[in-house]
C-alpha cells in the first residue's frame, strides 16, 4: 500500500453492528415479537424464553437495534497478548473491556473499550456509549468492531 492512501474499513464480523443513519453505531440483535425478549448476538432460530407463547420457530424474531448507551456492570483489562484467533498489535498494547448493562433491554453486553481509556478511567455504574473502532488491520483494510467509550 502506498503511503497516505486511505485504507478500506470493514466490520470484522458481518451483521453484529451497523452505523446509524444519523451518526453513531448500534448493535444488531433480534427481538421476540411475542414475549419481547431481545437477543444479542442475534438469535434467528427460536425464542429461548421457555415461557414464551409465540410460535418459537424463528418467525417471531425480527431485527432489533439495541440501545447505544448503558452503565458499566463490570470491567477488566488484558495485560498480556491473547492467543489466536485474536490478532494482536505488535508490540502488544494492553486494552480494557467493559460489560455494560443496557437499561431498556435489561441485559449486559461485553465489548472492547476504545484505545487510550484504561481501567483507571472506568468505574462500575459509569455511563458508556457505543462506537466503532479498529480491531486489527492488514496492508489495505481496517477491520472494525463495536467498542464502548465513556459517554
Amino acid at each position: 500500500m502506498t503511503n497516505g492512501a486511505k485504507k478500506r474499513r470493514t466490520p470484522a464480523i458481518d451483521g453484529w453492528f451497523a452505523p446509524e443513519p444519523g451518526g453513531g453505531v448500534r448493535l444488531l440483535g433480534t427481538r421476540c415479537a411475542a414475549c419481547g425478549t431481545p437477543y444479542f448476538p442475534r438469535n434467528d432460530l427460536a425464542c429461548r424464553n421457555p415461557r414464551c407463547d409465540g410460535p418459537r420457530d424463528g418467525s417471531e424474531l425480527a431485527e432489533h437495534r439495541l440501545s447505544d448507551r448503558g452503565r458499566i456492570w463490570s470491567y477488566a483489562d488484558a495485560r498480556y497478548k491473547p492467543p489466536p484467533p485474536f490478532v494482536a498489535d505488535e508490540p502488544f498494547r494492553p486494552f480494557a473491556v467493559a460489560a455494560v448493562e443496557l437499561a431498556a433491554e435489561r441485559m449486559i453486553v461485553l465489548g472492547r473499550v476504545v484505545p487510550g481509556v484504561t481501567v483507571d478511567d472506568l468505574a462500575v455504574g459509569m455511563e458508556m456509549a457505543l462506537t466503532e473502532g479498529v480491531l486489527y488491520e492488514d496492508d489495505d483494510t481496517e477491520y472494525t468492531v463495536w467498542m464502548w467509550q465513556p459517554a
Partner: protein
Amino acid sequence: MSVVVLGAGMHPWGKWGRSFVEYGLVAARAALADAGLDWRDVQYVAGADTIRNGYPGFVAGATFAQALGWTGARVSSSYAACASGAQAVAAARAQILAGLCDVALVVGADAAPKGFFAPVGGDRPDDPDWLRFRLLGATNPIYFALAARRRVDLHGATLEDFAAVKVKNARHGLANPNARYRKEVTAADVAASPVVADPLRLLDICATSDGGAALVLASEDFARSRGAADAVRIAALSTATPTFPKTVLDLPDFATDSAAAVPEPEHPFRASIARAAYAEAGIGPEDLSFAEVYDLSTALELDWYEDIGLCAPGGAEDLLRFGATALGGRVPVNPSGGLASFGEAVPAQAIAQVCELTWQLRGTAGERQVPGARTGIAVNQGLFGHGSAIIAVQGGHRS
C-alpha cells in the same frame, strides 16, 4: 440405595509433558488398588474427555479401557467443559443406580498447553468460544477479572482478601502429595506478581496443569459383599443447567440473557447447582464439614462461599477474614489446596475433587485432614452452562 466410592486414585498434577493416557492409566490403577479390585472386575468405564487431542481424548473412555487392556467392559465418554469429570461420575452412578452394573471405573486426564487456554485451531466464525477470542481478545482471566471487579464494587472485597485466599490454599496444598505447587505463598508474593487482568494478578489465577484422577464406584450391595459396608457414599450429584434468563456474564458469553420479559430467577446459576444437590441429599449447607470449590481465581472462591450457602451474599470476605474457611476453621474450603495448588487439568479436576471428598470422609487425608469430617460438597462451573455439585457423606452415616 446409593452409590459408594470404593477407590480413589490420582496421578500427581504438574507439567510432565507426557500423554494424558499415561496420567489416566496411573490414576485408574491407583483407584483400583485402593478399592482392592482388579481391572477385570470393572463392568463399566466412564471417561471424561480432554479436547486437546484428535477426537476428544481419543474418545476417552475407550482409550483408557484399551490402555488397561480390553475386557469387554461397557463404556461412555463425557465432555462438559470443566464439569466433564462430574458428568462421567454421573454416567457411572446412573448405571449402578439403574442396576445395570455393580462396579464402574471413572477416569479423567489432561495434558494442558502452556499459557492461556485457547480454542482449537481453524476459522470457526459460528463458534462463540472462537469469536470471543477473535472479536474481544476475551481470555478466561478476563471473565474471572470481571467477576472479581464486581465483588470489589458490590461487597467491598479487597486485593488483600483475594491474596488471603491464595495464601490459605497454598498452605493447605503443602500437605497434599498430588498437588503441583507445594510451597507457602505470602500476601507479598501475590502483590509482587504481575497483573494479568485487572484486578487479578498472576497468583490470583489458577494455572493449567497435567494430571489424572480416577474413582471406583460400586453399589452398596457390592461394597457390603466385599466387606466395605462403611465406604464413602455419594448422597447427591447435580448437573443443573441455568434457568432463563441467565443474567450473570460467564465465559464465553458476549451478553447475558435479557430480563426484560421474564424476571431473573430467584437463585443465580451457580447457587442453583448447589441447591439442587442439597435438595437431592436432603441436607443443607449447615451440615457441611468442608467444601471443595472451583477456585479458577481467588475471587471466585469467595463467590462460591455464597453460592453454596456458607453465608449470605456479601458475607464471604468476613468468613475468610475470620478464618472460618481455613483448616481448623468452622468449614474449611479447599482443604486439598484447590486449583490454587493444583492448576486445572480440566477433565480430571471434578474427579480429583471427589478423590479429596473420599479421603477426607475416610479420615485419611493426613496433615490436611478436616477433623471429624462427615459431609462434604464439591462444586464446579464450566463453559456453556455446565456445572456440577457432588455431595458425599461418611460411610455408615445417614444424613
